[in-house]
């Protein structure tokens, strides 16, 4: 029973820690797609500041099979002020009707409403810019808990100063998205003093199930000369090193767990076989071959390991179920363990192989002992 429990705990450890790490990565993936970049992000040609002829680009991208919608954004640096509070943030100009189809920011309004097309004099801001009523919840400088209907002063880098009414507060639980500040394209045009025919980037939402890499290729085939990046490319740029480190952490956890499993099973089978030396000697004396005796011990190890794995799966699934209902709270959102069938299958195979190795060596050592030595034990 103890052996089954140890195998179950080893199996749980092999799955659980990596599942939390994967939960972090999946959360980052979800947030980057849902709030920041869409499935694909089009950026200006290298060494250029803006995407020019943006209407033509949007028309091209929207015709690509697999694209649901493309939305242009124009970002401009600004200083936001409320009473004594003053912070620097980029202000993003959007076409709200397009943006609703590309990101889920509009679905995450903590207070107030999302922007409407053509609205002037209004702004929506993320909770990490607006500030919480309880300042301990703020993760950086804010405007001191401004709310819907309050006024905020925005000084753009081109020298234009505007007072905006806050129309809505965004809360996505993505720290990056919760700092964003949005106005309409028309508002930005009034700030710039000319029509907005450029963009700093274009977000593209693709149909579910269509691989982003395929759509990216199609976009390039449609003659888009700007930089086209899938969210995987962006994640690799932004978190590649972190993902590598997580993978290394997972590998270390896996190896340590496997070594524990091998050592425990080795000791268990060694004790069992040493205690059964006389019996093994008798079985060999009767004429039962060494291979059958070894297989018998391996079968025992196999059964114990399978029982341990079954118990481990129950524990893992139980923890996943619990943490799905009561997830870990992190600044960048709720983290739930991410476990796939292939994780369970691959770890099951690994632990079975480890168990077979751990079981075979001591069983072989004792089974090869000569009959009389074994019988005198």
């Amino acid at each position, binding site marked *: 029973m103890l052996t089954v429990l140890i195998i179950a705990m080893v199996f749980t450890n092999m799955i659980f820690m990596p599942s939390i790490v994967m939960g972090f990565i999946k959360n980052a993936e979800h947030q980057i797609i849902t709030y920041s970049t869409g499935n694909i992000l089009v950026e200006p040609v290298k060494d250029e500041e803006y995407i020019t002829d943006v209407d033509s680009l949007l028309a091209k991208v929207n015709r690509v099979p697999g694209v649901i919608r493309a939305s242009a954004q124009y970002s401009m640096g600004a200083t936001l002020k409320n009473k004594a509070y003053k912070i620097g943030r980029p202000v993003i100009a959007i076409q709200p009707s397009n943006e609703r189809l590309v990101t889920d920011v509009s679905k995450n309004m903590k207070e107030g409403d999302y922007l409407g097309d053509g609205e002037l004099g209004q702004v929506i801001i993320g909770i990490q810019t607006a500030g919480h009523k309880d300042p301990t919840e703020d993760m950086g400088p804010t405007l001191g808990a401004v709310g819907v209907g309050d006024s905020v002063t925005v000084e753009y880098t081109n020298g234009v100063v505007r007072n905006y009414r806050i129309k809505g507060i965004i809360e996505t639980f993505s720290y990056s998205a919760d700092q964003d500040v949005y106005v309409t394209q028309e508002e930005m045009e009034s700030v710039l003093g000319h029509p907005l025919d450029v963009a700093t980037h274009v977000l593209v939402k693709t149909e579910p199930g269509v691989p982003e890499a395929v759509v990216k290729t199609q976009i390039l085939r449609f003659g888009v000369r700007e930089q086209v990046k899938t969210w995987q490319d962006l994640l690799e740029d932004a978190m590649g090193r972190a993902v590598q480190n997580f993978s290394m952490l997972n590998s270390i956890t896996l190896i340590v767990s496997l070594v524990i499993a091998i050592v425990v099973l080795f000791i268990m089978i060694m004790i069992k076989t040493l205690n059964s030396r006389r019996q093994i000697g008798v079985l060999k*004396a009767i004429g039962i071959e060494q291979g059958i005796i070894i297989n018998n011990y391996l079968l025992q190890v196999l059964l114990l390991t399978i029982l341990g794995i079954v118990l481990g799966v129950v524990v893992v699934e139980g923890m996943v179920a619990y943490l799905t209902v009561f997830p870990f709270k992190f600044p960048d959102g709720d983290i739930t363990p991410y476990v796939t069938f292939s994780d369970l299958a691959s770890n099951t195979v690994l632990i079975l192989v480890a168990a077979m190795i751990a079981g075979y060596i001591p069983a072989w050592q004792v089974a090869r002992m000569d009959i009389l030595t074994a019988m005198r034990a």
Partner: protein
Amino acid sequence: MTMIQTKDVTKVYQMGKVQVHALRGVTVTIGKGEFVGIMGASGSGKSTLLHMLGLLDRPSSGSIALSGIDIGVLSDRERARFRLKRLGYVFQDYALVPELNVQENVFLASMVRGTKMLDYLSSTAQILALIGLGDRMAHLHNELSGGEQQRVAIARAIVDHPEILFADEPCANLDTASSRTVLDLFKTINMEREQTIVMVSHEEWHKEYFDRVLTLQDGLIIADTG
């Protein structure tokens, strides 16, 4: 018909720098259906001789033939098969597999021999009825007395009609009454099945059961009643 034939069998154990001559040249012939007792004082070489005859150990020199087969030329694997198919063993401490019940202990070797399930279940039931344990088939070893356990061990040894049955002091751990039950069983099997039995013993009163007694002293047969 000759079942066992040995010629000048010796066994020398190396104990550090000292050589111990356990057998010094044993030559003996045992025929089919004989119930032979190997007797002698402790250290006389009787168990060593039984181990050589039962293929549990190899002699240092000399030859042994069982049922006309020179066993000296057999590989370890062939010797294991020979033991499984043609020999039966009863040990001093019964040596039952503790996890198995009476019935399973008896048919364990039959199963490994490749006997069909219906056949070994049937022969197990018959042999357990013969030894008077037909109603204890589902019992574990710790639910049996020493004498009963030894009877189960005998049933295991004879269930598939071995050509030769070897018994190494099978009554050493039994009281006199249980010993008599076991010896009576050996005698019955010997008489009814014409079973060749070679048994090591140091109890003088066991002689009354043997057809023939080989007495060993210092690794040599000093007396043979056959």
